[in-house]
């Protein structure tokens, strides 16, 4: 698939993986936020490849994230939809794409985004996780009813 889109660069930038997940068609520039939203840091064990601003026939430019030896759960996949609704997920087993799916915007997200309202009870030491209902207008805090209409990524915990 990648060879068709940009055969010269792809081979160098993102090698094929034996097992794991390839997140493709991420909006250009959002790959690091996808990694952040998946909770992957330098201290976690995944082998990770990131390609940004890769030429794409469909999107002009796109980002790609490859995760070796980890298959993302549906909940994890759907988190990606918050920042890149056109992303596609390929589950790889023994170098083959075994499963290919789009992302679906979840109805509710918990513990992923911080409420930007400083007066919200979810920003205190209470034993709760932040919780947002996903609406067409944005993320709706179920505690203080504040709506995050844009720039969701800057509020990712």
């Amino acid at each position, binding site marked *: 698939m990648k060879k068709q889109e940009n055969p010269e660069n792809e081979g160098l930038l993102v090698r094929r993986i034996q097992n794991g997940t390839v997140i493709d068609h991420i909006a250009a520039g959002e790959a690091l936020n996808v990694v952040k939203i998946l909770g992957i840091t330098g201290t976690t064990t995944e082998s990770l490849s990131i390609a940004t601003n890769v030429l794409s026939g469909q999107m002009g430019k796109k980002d790609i994230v490859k995760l070796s030896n980890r298959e993302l759960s549906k909940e994890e996949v759907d988190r990606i939809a918050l920042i890149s609704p056109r992303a596609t997920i390929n589950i790889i087993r023994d170098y083959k794409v075994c499963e290919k799916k789009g992302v679906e915007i979840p109805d509710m997200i918990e513990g992923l985004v911080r409420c930007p309202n400083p007066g919200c009870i979810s920003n205190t*030491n*209470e034993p709760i996780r932040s919780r947002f209902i996903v609406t067409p207008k944005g993320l709706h*805090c179920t505690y*203080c*009813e504040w709506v995050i209409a844009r720039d969701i990524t800057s509020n990712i915990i």
Partner: protein
Amino acid sequence: MYKRGIRGGVVTRHIISIGDFDRRQIDRLLDNAKRIDAQKYDNNALYRKILATLFFEPSTRTRMSFEAAIARLGGTSISVDSVEACSIAKGETLADTIRVVSGYADAIVIRHPKEGAARLAAQFASVPVINAGDGAGQHPSQTLLDLYTIRQSMKLDEINVALIGDLRYGRTAHSLALALSLYHARLHTISPKGLELPTSLHTDLSERGMEITEHDTIGDVIKEVDVIYVTRIQRERFPDSASYFNVTSSYRITPELLTGAKKHAIVLHPLPRVDEIDPRVDLLPHAKYFEQSRNGVPVRMAMLLQVIQ
């Protein structure tokens, strides 16, 4: 109207936000309040029931009227009246306080400085929770008694309502506007620069089909409106006393202004008022703010009956 949570097999019912209500639920509650107002209620309906009033912010009217409401229904109340007086001062979370108080009382009324605190309380309580104001957030019992007071003078449908004062931070004005959108009211807003209705709320109300018109002065619209809802403009919103007095004087409701009003038009204020309404207005038939305050008891009695019974 209710957020239902199941803890220990018991379904608990809470009143947290006016946004949780639909029109039918509001009408039913106001009907019940009317029956109570006409003395058609069992004054032992909540005999031996205990209401915990947790006020982590100052309040006079709301707290006293809830305590009067439970007393009139045969129950009693226990209270915490400041953060300093309770274990939250020792670092206890609100969640733990609520779990503990749930073991002492049959319902909890809470006012808290943090927005969403009542929603959190409902999450951890095993008894019904009523929100009595959470920061700049919701105050549903105030909205219900505002609607009740309007309904004593006119039908709620398609009325013209002027909201005056601090519409940016005034939670009572926000909740009332939201509730009135269910009744196809037309809204007229009059507020100082910088204290206008928040854009998000304006958009939300417009999307609900509400017609909203901004005016520079109440005089522009006094002949059209059925309800004049006045809110307090807080002094701390202004850099100095002179600019505060300059602004507040131009939003003041006076008998002279009301000579141009409809005969049945009413003036409401969630109280306490400072300079927003000339005391001479108190004597006019338009003045309903003390009646509005008194209505807090039957409306809150109806709320308590609905969640505890």
